[in-house]
């Protein structure tokens, strides 16, 4: 530890810290543009100049290491003059177009110019102009505004792992760009907008839409992947205008995936805004009472074991519990939440959670990925893997299709379950790598067990984890990577076939006469037999809604107070940012209202009572925002009655930008899909 005196305040900071970090520890705010906590130090903007005792001239605090006994002055005439000088230089070529700049009101340069800018310019010559770049449908560039802090270059290379941005040419002609015009291939590209300190990189869908001070900000959770990134939903009136990440070191740090950030325009399109009924083969608008009447009538005429319910990947914990309780009231055990048919074993929570935790990835020292593509399934989690990989000594093995770029170097071990067998019997060289590691971990993709021999793959993966030393009392290296924010919550609530209950395949195989689908869009509606009466409760008129006999309009994740459980088993609360459209209602209230109408009133009539019941079912709902300390004491794993097949693993998310109902309704995502998407998907449309 080094003792440093900042403006007379004495602080102790670790050796090797920068002066800027010491200043922050002392509570002094240092202006900066190029410095960013999570990126390497560039030291090229010179805005963070401070005076250090005995130093002949001001020093750039971000790149200056502390020394014991150092005396730093952050607010002297020298410092202020130096920063004014830097600011004047920065403003020489920066256009004075704040009134038409989307960054206006939340611009680092604008804010700092208030403190260090001159009231007039001494520069009379022509300003430099830079041609705008086309780097894809998500990011709008106004490169004349660029102050060449190179944060975007460093983010793309270091965090996103897609080194496509760079600074070409030199001096006056230096430009930031891709040189060869191309769309950035990162799933984290939206974060470039956040880290750009000026208005050079702004959100293309949000261009000229709003000013930050007009927005109402609501805390939410991104449910479009299973990371559960903490987000801020910015709304004006009845509209979501943008979504930004919030900082949560344990989950998303300060990053966010593109699909969660940009697909919200899908919340305005193809929405179910009133109940609908199928009459004589055609959908007709109905009232809530009519819709409930039809359902009640149908369910009362159906025996309990012929009623089924499916919870989908975007269903919140509250409504899943309400539906489960309703089914229990009817006496049905036909529940399932595994729309993709994944052979998840709900017997123990650590069979289906990401037990290592996302932050725990940084402690691991070897990783095996089985049938998952974290880059597309959970981009923010992938950035965490990359962060660990970049620190070195982190062998990564990958079992799945060849030619996948995970943004870090992974040894391709093979394509199918045969590799798991080879790792189990030690005949594969990577088995030794795992054995040698102190804290090895494996990530099993949900897609790898969503196949006929899924149970066998799950059992084999667990056995491999146990044999490779991944399961220790203080370390749990077995991880299942889910795809959406609602999936783990349903599992925690045990929304799985009960005693004698039918699973999804049995229900679709003619096992039920009435099927209640809660946000269930994850399987092909054509699999539902024509005779089955389908109640679809959800927010988007996607393919499944078209198959329904009754449509109950629900609320999307931005429109309700809800609890979501991420892949780690971390329950997080999101709050209502806007009201659901038309007659749509929060989903648990719909089910509660229905239960009352049929005389099976659920035992809670407000959110607090419902949440108390949630907490009584699973402890994850009692510790919001936390995960239990991980570690595995019981090595007994899931059992499978079958053997693994030879078929290679196929990755589940082929079209990243159109993976859920909300993004499928989004124009922005449609444009992304046409730019980035697989060519065969384009041909099919």
């Amino acid at each position, binding site marked *: 530890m080094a003792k440093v005196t900042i403006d007379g305040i004495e602080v102790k900071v670790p050796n090797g810290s920068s002066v800027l970090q010491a200043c922050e520890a002392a509570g002094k705010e240092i202006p900066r543009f190029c410095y960013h906590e999570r990126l390497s130090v560039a030291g090229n903007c010179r805005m963070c100049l401070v005076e250090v005792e005995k130093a002949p001239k001001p020093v750039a605090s971000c790149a200056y290491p502390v020394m014991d006994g150092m005396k730093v002055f952050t607010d002297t005439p020298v410092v202020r003059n130096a920063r004014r000088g830097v600011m004047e230089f920065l403003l020489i070529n920066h256009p004075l177009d704040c009134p038409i700049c989307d960054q206006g009101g939340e611009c680092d340069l604008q804010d700092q110019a208030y403190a260090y800018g001159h009231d007039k310019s001494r520069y009379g010559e022509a300003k430099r102009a830079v041609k705008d770049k086309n780097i894809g449908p998500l990011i709008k560039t106004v490169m004349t505004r660029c102050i060449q802090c190179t944060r975007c270059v460093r983010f793309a290379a270091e965090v996103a792992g897609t080194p496509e941005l760079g600074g*070409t*040419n030199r001096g006056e002609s230096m430009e930031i760009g891709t040189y060869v015009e191309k769309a950035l291939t990162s799933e984290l590209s939206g974060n470039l907008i956040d880290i750009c300190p000026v208005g050079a990189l702004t959100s293309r869908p949000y261009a000229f839409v709003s000013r930050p001070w007009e927005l109402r900000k609501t805390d939410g959770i991104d449910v479009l992947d299973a990371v559960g990134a903490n987000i801020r939903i910015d709304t004006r009136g009845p509209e979501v205008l943008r979504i930004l990440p919030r900082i949560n070191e344990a989950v998303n740090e300060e990053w966010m995936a593109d699909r969660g950030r940009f697909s919200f325009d899908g919340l305005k399109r193809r929405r179910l805004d009133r109940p609908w009924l199928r009459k004589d083969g055609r959908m007709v608008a109905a009232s809530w009472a009519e819709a409930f009447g039809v359902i009640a009538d149908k369910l009362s005429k159906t025996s309990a074991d012929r009623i089924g319910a499916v919870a989908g990947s975007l269903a919140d914990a509250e409504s899943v519990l309400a539906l489960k309780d309703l089914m229990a009231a009817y006496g049905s055990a036909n529940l399932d939440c595994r729309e993709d048919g994944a052979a998840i074993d709900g017997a123990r929570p650590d069979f289906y959670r990401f037990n290592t935790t996302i932050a725990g990835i940084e402690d691991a020292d070897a990783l095996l990925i089985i049938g998952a593509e974290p880059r597309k399934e959970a981009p923010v989690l992938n950035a965490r893997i990359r962060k660990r990989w970049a620190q070195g000594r982190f062998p990564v093995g990958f079992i799945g299709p060849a030619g996948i770029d995970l943004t870090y170097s992974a040894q391709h071990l093979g394509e199918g379950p045969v590799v798991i067998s080879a790792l189990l019997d030690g005949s594969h060289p990577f088995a030794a790598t795992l054995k040698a590691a102190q804290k090895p971990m494996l990530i099993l993709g949900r897609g790898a067990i969503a196949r006929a021999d899924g149970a066998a793959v799950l059992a084999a993966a667990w056995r491999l984890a146990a044999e490779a030393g991944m399961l220790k009392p203080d370390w749990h290296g077995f991880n299942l990577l889910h795809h959406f924010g609602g999936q783990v919550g349903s599992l925690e609530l045990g929304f799985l076939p009960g005693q004698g209950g039918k699973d999804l395949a049995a229900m679709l195989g003619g096992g039920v006469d009435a099927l209640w689908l809660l946000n269930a869009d994850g399987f092909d509606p054509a699999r539902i037999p024509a005779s089955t009466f389908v109640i679809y409760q959800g927010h988007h008129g996607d393919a499944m809604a078209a198959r329904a006999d009754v449509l109950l309009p629900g609320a999307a994740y931005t429109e309700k107070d809800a609890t979501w459980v991420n892949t780690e088993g971390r329950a997080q609360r999101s709050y209502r940012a806007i009201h659901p459209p038309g007659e749509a209602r929060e989903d648990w209230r719909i089910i509660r209202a229905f239960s009352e109408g049929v005389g099976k009133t659920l035992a809670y009539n407000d959110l607090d009572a419902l949440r108390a019941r949630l907490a009584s079912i699973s402890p994850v709902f009692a510790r919001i925002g936390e995960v239990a300390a991980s570690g595995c004491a019981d090595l007994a794993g899931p059992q499978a009655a079958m053997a693994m097949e030879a078929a290679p693993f196929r990755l589940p998310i082929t079209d990243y930008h159109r993976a859920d109902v909300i993004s499928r309704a989004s124009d922005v995502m449609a444009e992304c899909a046409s730019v980035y998407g697989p060519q065969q998907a384009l041909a099919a449309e």
Partner: protein
Amino acid sequence: MSAPAHKEPHSFGFDAESEAKIATILKRYPESKQASAVIPLLYVAQRQMGRLTGSAWVPRVAMDVIADRLSMPPIRVYEVATFYFMFNMQPIGRHHLQLCGTTPCMLRGSDDVLRACKDAGGVKGVGDTSADGMFTLTEVECLGACVNAPILQIDDDYYEDLSYESTVKLLEAFKRGERPKPGSAIGRMASAPAGEQTVLTGRGDE
């Protein structure tokens, strides 16, 4: 600079001569630090283009080939190549005239040399390529040979102590396909004093 406006070749591959050079170059760097070879390899590519097409420049495909060879992202190669003006990012003439216009050369008559380049070389000015594709003129900063100013670097060779007349003669020789001996145009030895020796003459009269 965004994508160049000129015509880019569709493919690029190193020939045997270049490959031999690359093998020597790569040996200088440890296994994981091969990216350090980017500047030498850019030179190899540029010289190969000069040898094979008569125009020493680095097309984008060549940069991609180098990135691939050195296992580095293409943008890192673009950054280096565009930073150094020694790499030509667009086709140039057969001979690259690099005229120094920094103070000592300017005082010693680089303006005359520039005039000679325009008159004899057929270039309209700095940055231009002559109509016959023979010369491209670039103005460069100090070439570090100020004692023998003014300097005109043609391709890799320094021609020193130039005047209008000697420059014209020089360029005429290049046009005929000759390659005059580099060095001082007034016959001085390296950077020894011009004219005859004035000290250490052995005459014993100092």
